[in-house]
């Protein structure tokens, strides 16, 4: 991983070449080693690294950005020239906000665990051999991926601001498939090696694949569901993409438009974007260098806050919450470290008090249909069961849902007492932590029979 000192030197060298009014240099990248397995064998084993330096230049109010993965002097000079040429070709952006000056940043929640990067491909292979051996003994076919890596983000600007953040990451996911096609899946993600237990993941997935349950059909209808963490993550991700950005609200594109201060979900819902929490460790600054705030988005089901970058904050007389995305992607401010607060109900209690319900391990291919309504569709996968009076009584086919997310989150009956952490989409340091949920009248509209 590029150290803070090394990153600062590269960024300062880049800025030193510039002749402009304002400039921001960002370096991001890292290493990633992925051991992928399928059909009970390692199918791909790759290691890669890359770092990209982006220079955003402002000359006479005109903005341009150039980036490269080469940091030698000649390449830096070429990068600077390209960035300056781009900015000169633009019209002035009169609405642009100036870059922030030096400012204190919150304490990072990110973790750098050397034992993550120390895990060798040989060690991964050894443990996978053991896992596959167990799987073979149970007549299962195993597929999955084990990735370990690091990532860093460093930012410096012409006003003297500098920020650096880095973390390690480990992700293990596994699908176990039995001879009759029954499957189970499990995944763990963490920044510390000790928090990812491939054997435990195998046991969870294998248990589901091997449950001696007959298959049953399912008439599409609204049903009580017990959603495990990965399924909850799918629903929350749909909301995260569309609901909380101040630009989406201002432009009438969010389901929360006009609803600030209103109850839009169950009182059991507390949703916060918090990079400092142990379950969602992240970076304390965004891609504009603004300090990332802890933002309580939903409290007791009531909409409390939205997310801002410097642009949207200016338009709203607010302050940036530190959720700016990389320049030029057109995404507006987005959540990065969402946590749905855990509740008081144990998983076992959620099972036993469900009555008749559908247990969902995970959703797949979730996609928004209507952003303003926050209506989402997707299918269940790798472990969908009929639950009755606390017992799993049948294996169900994949089921398609079509749901308005605010409806789903309004119909929560119980919130699990344990958080699961998942890798977030996109950004370095992104993570999402959710508990299991029991929701009534969840609309299944088709079956995979």
């Amino acid at each position, binding site marked *: 991983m590029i150290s803070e000192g090394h990153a600062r030197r590269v960024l300062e060298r880049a800025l030193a070449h510039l002749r402009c009014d304002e400039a921001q240099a960002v370096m991001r990248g890292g290493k*990633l080693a*992925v*051991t*992928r*397995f*399928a*059909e*009970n*064998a390692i199918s*791909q*084993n*790759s*290691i*890669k*690294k*890359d770092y990209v330096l982006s220079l955003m230049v402002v000359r006479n109010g005109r903005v341009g*950005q150039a*980036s*490269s993965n*080469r940091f030698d002097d000649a390449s830096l000079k070429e990068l600077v020239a390209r*960035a300056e040429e*781009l900015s000169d*070709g*633009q*019209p002035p952006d009169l609405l642009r906000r100036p870059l922030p000056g030096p400012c204190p940043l919150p304490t990072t929640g990110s973790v750098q665990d050397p034992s993550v990067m120390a895990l060798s*491909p040989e060690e991964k*292979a050894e443990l*996978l051999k053991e896992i*596959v051996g167990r799987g073979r003994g149970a007549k299962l*076919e195993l*597929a999955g*991926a084990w*990735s370990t890596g690091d990532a860093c983000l460093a930012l410096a600007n012409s006003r003297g601001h500098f920020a650096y953040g880095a973390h390690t990451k480990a992700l293990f*996911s596994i*699908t176990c*498939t039995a001879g009759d096609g029954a499957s189970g*899946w499990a995944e763990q993600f963490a920044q510390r090696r000790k928090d990812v237990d491939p054997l435990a993941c195998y046991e969870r997935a294998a248990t589901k694949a091997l449950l001696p349950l007959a298959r049953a059909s399912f008439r599409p209808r609204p049903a009580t569901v017990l959603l495990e963490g990965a399924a909850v993550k799918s629903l929350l991700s749909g909301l995260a993409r569309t609901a909380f950005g101040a630009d989406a609200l201002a*432009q*009438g*594109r969010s389901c929360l*438009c*006009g609803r600030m201060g209103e109850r839009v979900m169950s009182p059991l819902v507390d949703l916060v974007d918090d990079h400092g929490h142990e379950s969602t460790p992240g970076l304390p600054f965004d891609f504009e260098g603004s300090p990332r705030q802890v933002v309580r988005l939903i409290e007791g089901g009531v909409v409390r806050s939205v997310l801002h970058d410097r642009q949207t904050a200016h338009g709203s007389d607010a302050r940036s919450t530190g959720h700016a995305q990389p*320049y*030029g992607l*057109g995404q507006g401010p987005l959540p990065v470290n969402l946590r749905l607060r855990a509740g008081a109900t144990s998983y076992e209690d959620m099972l036993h008090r469900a009555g008749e319900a559908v247990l969902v391990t995970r959703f*797949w*291919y*979730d*996609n928004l*249909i*209507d*952003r303003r309504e926050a*209506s989402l569709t*997707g*299918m269940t*996968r790798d472990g969908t069961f009929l639950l009755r009076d606390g017992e799993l009584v049948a294996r169900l086919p*994949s089921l*398609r849902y079509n*749901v308005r997310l605010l409806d789903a989150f309004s119909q929560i009956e119980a919130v699990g007492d344990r958080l699961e952490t998942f890798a977030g989409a996109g950004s370095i340091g992104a993570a999402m932590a959710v508990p299991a949920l029991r929701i009534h009248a969840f609309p299944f509209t088709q079956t*995979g029979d």
Partner: protein
Amino acid sequence: MDAIVDEGRLHDVLALCEKAGVAYADLRLVRTRTESLRSCNGRMSGLRSHEDMGLGLRVLCNGAWGFAGNPDLDWPKLKKTVERAVSMARASAQLRQGPVRLSPVEPVQDSWIGAMAKDPFAIPLGSKIELLLRCDEAMARFEKIRRREGYLSFRRQEKRFLSSTGQHLDQDCTWSGGLLTATAADGSRCQQRSYPSPFRGRLLQGGWECIENLHFEEHARRLGREATMLLDAPICPPGETTLVLGKSQLALQVHESCGHATELDRVFGAEANFAGSSFLEPDMRGRFRFGSPSVTLVADATTAGAAGSYGWDDEGVPARRHDLVREGLFVGYQSGRDTACRLGEPSSGNMRAAGWNDIPIVRMSNVHLLPGEATFDELIGGVDEGLLMTDNLSWSIDDRRLHFQFAAEMAWRIRRGKICEALRLPVYHGRTPEFWRSCDGVADGDSWEIWGTPNCGKGQPLQVMAVGHGVSYARFRKVAVGGDHDF
């Protein structure tokens, strides 16, 4: 490419692999340049240029694969790359079934340049910006348009491929594309219209001529008008009806239900943990009725100007065209050297990596629905009651590529052979083989166009690639349709 790394040095890398006991090695030295411009509500909100280069080395050692990517191209780093790749392969060999076997490929030394008439990187920035801002102005004439977006993207990739079996292939491709989106909102509803298609637009292989041929300005005002009109349009009613699909909607239908279903690595479980498998088993070839006799689907990496075209794939296998579904009968897969060898066949030349830093995997090149014989007017004329959908909004399909649900930005009702009112939120769903068997007409070559999907995702870690789809229009009978969750 010689200016980046001396070719002799690349051969030294392969020699080092051989010395390490590697049975086969291939490397890709890739240099990529991109430029993207984004406008939003009258501002240029993103003007970005990116260049990168690096080397990806794949080795087969002890019967298993290893891969290492490195942006550092000095000799000590190249040696390190070899060590890493070999180390990864040896680790893979600790847990393998049988040894990986490869179908043969001829050693060829050649070069290929993709279609391009006008270098997009030589077009003045001002021209590109003015185009986007003029389109923005046209969309802004409608009061209820709350978000106006324009996007242009250009990409050039130079690639040198060398293998231990004597291949030396240089390829140079340029891609260009863009889109406009107008989003209208009135306080309770929000509707969008895009051209030529949403989600990073229509990407083709070619230069600035691809953008000129899109005639953005002719469509900008229409987008504003249609998005506004959709706010008050009736919602698409549920039921069973005749569906005519075209343009990006049909292209995506082909992509999701046919393109991915015929990727052979999925059949063997390579994507079981992520992108999924396929319902098309090898013994179904030549026997399984995938669609009606109107349906012929081909994989064709030679189509000039299509986003997924190339001279050779990333194993040095020449691009070719081959049938996937012939007059409704499932007949073929898209494969690589190792997957094809398991069927005792030659590779179809469908192995690609998104960049130098990625391992090649089986990818669609271009998957086309071949044109039929009816005109577009004849297809519509044969509909007593139905819907026309052309611009995709949402897509979702199960992990075996069977059960799908798609939505379009809007639909037009067809009544007694005439296209009439517009409807919002049209959603339809089905099961892949039943859906394609219900196809009773495909429009002719007059309306056949190539569409590009720039963001096809597959693999762990995720690789995003451009693929192409040539489609005209197709008619499907008795399709389940719903809107706003009315199923």
